[in-house]
């Protein structure tokens, strides 16, 4: 016994890694009960920046643009082109590539201006400020993209 619980065998992966089953003690009667823990590593938001809580279906609908199959039921008018999921995938890859290029550029510039002491420039307060600005820019881009994805015309794709 350890702290009131009996020892039990662990789940070992095929390659010898220790695995933890997240539903090992699942019982239907536990559903709806007051949760015993709520583990949150997400940074605390400021009071005027409350995160919007969405449901699983909304997430699936949004991600379905990338994962789902295209419907070919919509007739294409002459001169028009249906927006297919592969277009969104290409757009997403292009956006990620652009993000990485910008990030690499910022990192390279920071290293160029840094002292040649061998210390990591990204640990400096000035660089942390730049990093915050950069994160804010990414957040802005992300929210705008999210807004585009949630428009009815795009939602219909999923």
């Amino acid at each position, binding site marked *: 016994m350890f702290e009131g619980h009996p020892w039990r065998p662990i789940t*070992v992966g095929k390659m010898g890694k220790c695995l933890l089953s997240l539903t090992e*003690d699942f019982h239907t009667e*536990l559903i709806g009960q007051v949760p015993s823990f709520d*583990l949150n590593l997400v940074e605390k938001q400021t009071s005027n920046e409350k995160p*919007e809580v*969405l449901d699983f279906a909304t*997430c699936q609908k949004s991600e379905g643009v990338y994962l789902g199959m295209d419907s070919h039921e919509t007739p294409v008018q002459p001169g028009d082109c249906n927006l297919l999921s592969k277009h969104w995938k290409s757009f997403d890859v292009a956006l990620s590539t652009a993000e990485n290029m910008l990030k690499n550029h910022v990192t390279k510039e920071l290293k160029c201006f840094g002292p040649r002491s061998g210390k990591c420039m990204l640990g400096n307060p000035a660089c942390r400020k730049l990093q915050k600005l950069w994160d804010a820019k990414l957040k802005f881009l992300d929210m705008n993209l999210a807004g585009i994805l949630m428009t009815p015309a795009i939602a219909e794709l999923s």
Partner: protein
Amino acid sequence: MAILQPLGEHGHVIFEDVDGKPRVDCTMLDPGASAFLMGSGPFHRYAEHLKSLGYPIETIEMQRTPRTFHFGGDHSTTSHWIAKIPIFVNSVMGFAHVFIIKGETPMLMGRPIIEELGH
């Protein structure tokens, strides 16, 4: 851990136990990680597993986030979603916030969550 290549064009990394049984409900304990994260593939398979057990997956709470994770070799990826997933361990139920990243990254439970679970 074994790499399987089932249906579709993507390679899926699915944990298997010593008997070779796929375990979509399992996470790997990763003391080197600072967060709890998983790819969208393993997340949806875990949700399907919960559904098969009778858990109402429509009640899973989601939040948008622009959190970037850095891996070795200058590789980084951005998480766009945080999911509050149910966990059933030690005969109790609780929740953990997990970052969802694109792709098939397996469930990785970082040290802070492991430590909290151990309390």
